[in-house]
């Protein structure tokens, strides 16, 4: 298995991408499978770290939570933009100590934090394991730490570690 398919997840994603771009037919399945096999073998020379999905069945739940949160914060930031300077607003940095170490999980967390308007991933220090984010509408600093840790990090920890 390891010899034939060194990165099964990557191969599957490439195959799905190929079929999405072309058509869901048997011919494209075979062609796409061949191309993704060659591509994943080329990838082995880069030796990317392999993500280990322990509980992948939690991924849809995470995706649903994130989509909803992104929608909510879209509305929140849109309101802030529309209100202009009529409302006093404090923005600032929040330092969050993380337990998450898996690189794929951290990358996923970065995507979540970045895609959510109103929060921006600024810096993660691997030595101290402290994540620095910037929050546009900072009302309750501890609330943000709780939110990131309980809502996303705990799920990511369950999925990856």
């Amino acid at each position, binding site marked *: 298995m390891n010899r034939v398919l060194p990165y099964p997840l990557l191969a599957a994603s490439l195959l799905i*991408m190929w079929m*999405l*771009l072309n058509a869901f037919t048997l011919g494209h399945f075979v062609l796409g499978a061949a191309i993704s096999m060659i591509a994943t073998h080329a990838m082995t020379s880069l030796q990317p770290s392999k993500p280990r999905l322990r509980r992948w069945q939690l991924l849809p739940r995470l995706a649903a939570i994130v989509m909803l949160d*992104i*929608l909510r914060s*879209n509305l929140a*930031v*849109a309101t*802030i*933009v*529309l209100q*202009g300077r009529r409302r006093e607003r404090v*923005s600032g*940095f929040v*330092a969050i100590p993380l337990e998450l170490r898996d690189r794929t999980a951290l*990358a996923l967390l*970065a*995507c979540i*934090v*970045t*895609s*959510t*308007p*109103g*929060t*921006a*991933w*600024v*810096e993660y*220090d691997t*030595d*101290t394991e*402290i994540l*620095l984010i*910037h929050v*546009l509408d900072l009302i309750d600093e501890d609330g943000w730490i709780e939110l990131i840790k309980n809502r996303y990090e705990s799920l990511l920890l369950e999925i990856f570690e």
Partner: protein
Amino acid sequence: MTHIESLPAWAALLTALFVLIGASLTLLGAIGTLRFHRFFERVHAPTLGTSWGTGAIVISSMIFFTVLQSRPVFHEILIGAFITVTTPVTLMLLARAALYRDRAEGREDVPPHPAALRRKASSGGED
């Protein structure tokens, strides 16, 4: 090769609604970039366009072409996926560059590097 007249009314309305939502969010993001004053505030505004701004337009495109071609069309999802995956790269580059600049200038409104904090704590707070 557009057959807009063959599109049923419900699909046309849904498509229009999502295009409008997506375009408005992206526009608000652009206005926000203009209105906010500090770099770290400005960085938030364009994410309106890269999240549900893109998302809504992608959804409307999927509805439009699925109904028009009477077969499921999903490849627009890839646009959303790639934008979501690549946005953090540019954002982190910009944010860390700005953070480095502000720290080098010794500005008070940015937090010091966590390692520097730790050094300060271990040396008994004298600095």
